[in-house]
């Protein structure tokens, strides 16, 4: 039996502890924000926060999580009441197909938890593990810069200004 705390709620699960978190989120907890993209830790579609650290949930066995707290994009806000990262992404309309975006938002949230005044390089490095095939990069970067401003900071040498 494994107790897993996701978005503040603890669930008791009778599942093979080697099971990667991604499958548990999607199949057992009905949380669909984290996506299956590769299962190899290469694309970031499955990114969630574990104690504020962005991690690939597709290669994180649930047995390894222990008492750490998992936050998925569902935990950042809802359609009716979006959180600030989500509001920034909506404001910038930062999505095409949107498949990569929850992973991007989780990663952005992780960065902004660490600093709300990253440099442009730090911003891009923080986002680097996540892939987007639609080429939404510019809008994703704009959204994270906006979210930084919303939190009272801002990217110090932003390549495009937040307007």
């Amino acid at each position, binding site marked *: 039996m494994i107790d897993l705390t996701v978005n503040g709620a603890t669930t008791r699960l009778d599942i093979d502890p*080697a099971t990667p978190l991604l499958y548990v989120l999607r199949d057992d907890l009905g949380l669909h924000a984290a996506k299956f993209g590769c299962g190899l*830790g290469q694309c970031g579609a499955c990114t969630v926060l574990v104690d504020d650290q*962005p991690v690939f949930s597709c290669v994180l*066995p649930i*047995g*390894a999580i222990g008492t750490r707290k998992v936050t998925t994009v569902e935990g950042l806000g809802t359609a009716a009441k979006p959180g600030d990262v989500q509001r920034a992404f909506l404001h910038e309309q930062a999505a095409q197909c949107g498949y990569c975006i929850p992973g991007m938002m989780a990663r952005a949230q992780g960065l902004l938890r660490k600093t709300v005044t990253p440099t442009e390089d730090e911003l891009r490095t923080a986002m680097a593990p996540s892939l987007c095939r639609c080429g939404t990069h510019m809008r994703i970067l704009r959204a994270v810069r906006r979210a930084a401003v919303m939190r009272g900071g801002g990217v110090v040498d932003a390549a495009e200004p937040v307007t």
Partner: protein
Amino acid sequence: MNRSGITRKLVWAVVALCVCVLIFAILAYRPAIATVTRPDPRLFDPALVVRGANLARLGNCVSCHQSASGRPYAGGYPVKTPFGTIYGSNITPDPATGIGAWSPTAFRRAMREGVGRDGSHLYPAFPYTHYANVTESDLGALYAFLMTRPAVRSVPPANTMIPPLGFRPLLAGWKLLFVRPQRITPDANQSAAWNRGRDIGETLAHCTACHSPRGLFQQEKRGAQAYDGGWSGGWYAPPINAHSPAVQAWTVERLDAYFRTGLSTAHAAAAGPMGSVTYNLARAAPTDVRALATYYAWQMRDAPAARLEPPLPDRQALASQGHPDGAQLYEGACAVCHEPGAAMMVAGRPALPLGTPLHEDNPRDTIQIVLKGLHPPVSPRGPYMPAFADALDDRQVAEIVAYLQMRHGTGPAWKNLEKDVAKARKEGE
């Protein structure tokens, strides 16, 4: 060695150092060399520049002299030593912040003697100890190459050395004690490739800088201990002589492929500081790279795997029993890429037990790879592994590493893994 023993040694060391300073205070003095106007890049012979580029790549100069954001030769890249952090200098031809005002003489003195244009002694993190044998014409080519790079105005951060090592004249003493240039003369019994490989490897490429153990004063141990394995940036550079722990022979072909692609299908991917070495070798003259491979394959000619490639153990059941937590973590985090039948294995990526780190006598490289993952060293296409530093704690990483070693390793069991994980994390910061 117990703690007070180390302290006592250190005290003696400091005393010894002070004595050196006193004795060699006068010898330590080097005059400044007059500045010159930056030579017009168009005046250099393009062929000379191309030759210099090759030498710079063989020497992996850009690794330490890039900027923190990766601008080549602009300086600012931190090199961590036990005595503090040294930032690679700006060697672009910017006259104010780089070497644009350096004459060829100043450049030659820096390379050969480790003395800056202004007369200050350079820290041996800059491996001038290896450059005594670099030929005049090669120095000229390197100079031409550097002087034709884009000039970048950028001042690297100040070094943070533990006192009193910020006091540079002390380095004269260090040099007197440890710099013993040896002339390299061609060995008529060896092939031209071998001789060329030795020339490059022992001088510009400075391979011993990482692959040899160092003494208390960070001096490289030469002679019998050369290539016995050393440390670099929190990574272990394994022995590349008869003590090579590789489980498959390093033939010339395999080494050559490894140097040029960052991947040997009989071993593993270049990781840690070796990554940038292969990045540069991949862009160097293929014949020189081949020569290096020839020389170092010869260095490892008596390694165990060179004589007999042992069957690779897979003690899966035993390891699962010995480290059930590690087995479970491996199954959920690693098996998807590394277990036989994983698509990556079917496609021909080297099997986990081939990886030299699992057979080294210390666990550091295995730990570092789990923590930091791998990035394709030579081009965007290449071996990749995600980093697990943020996903797993020290105990979990230690469990995985212990499991892996028990399952596939050939050396004695590693001890105190958790501590070493903590240390690796710290050194990797």
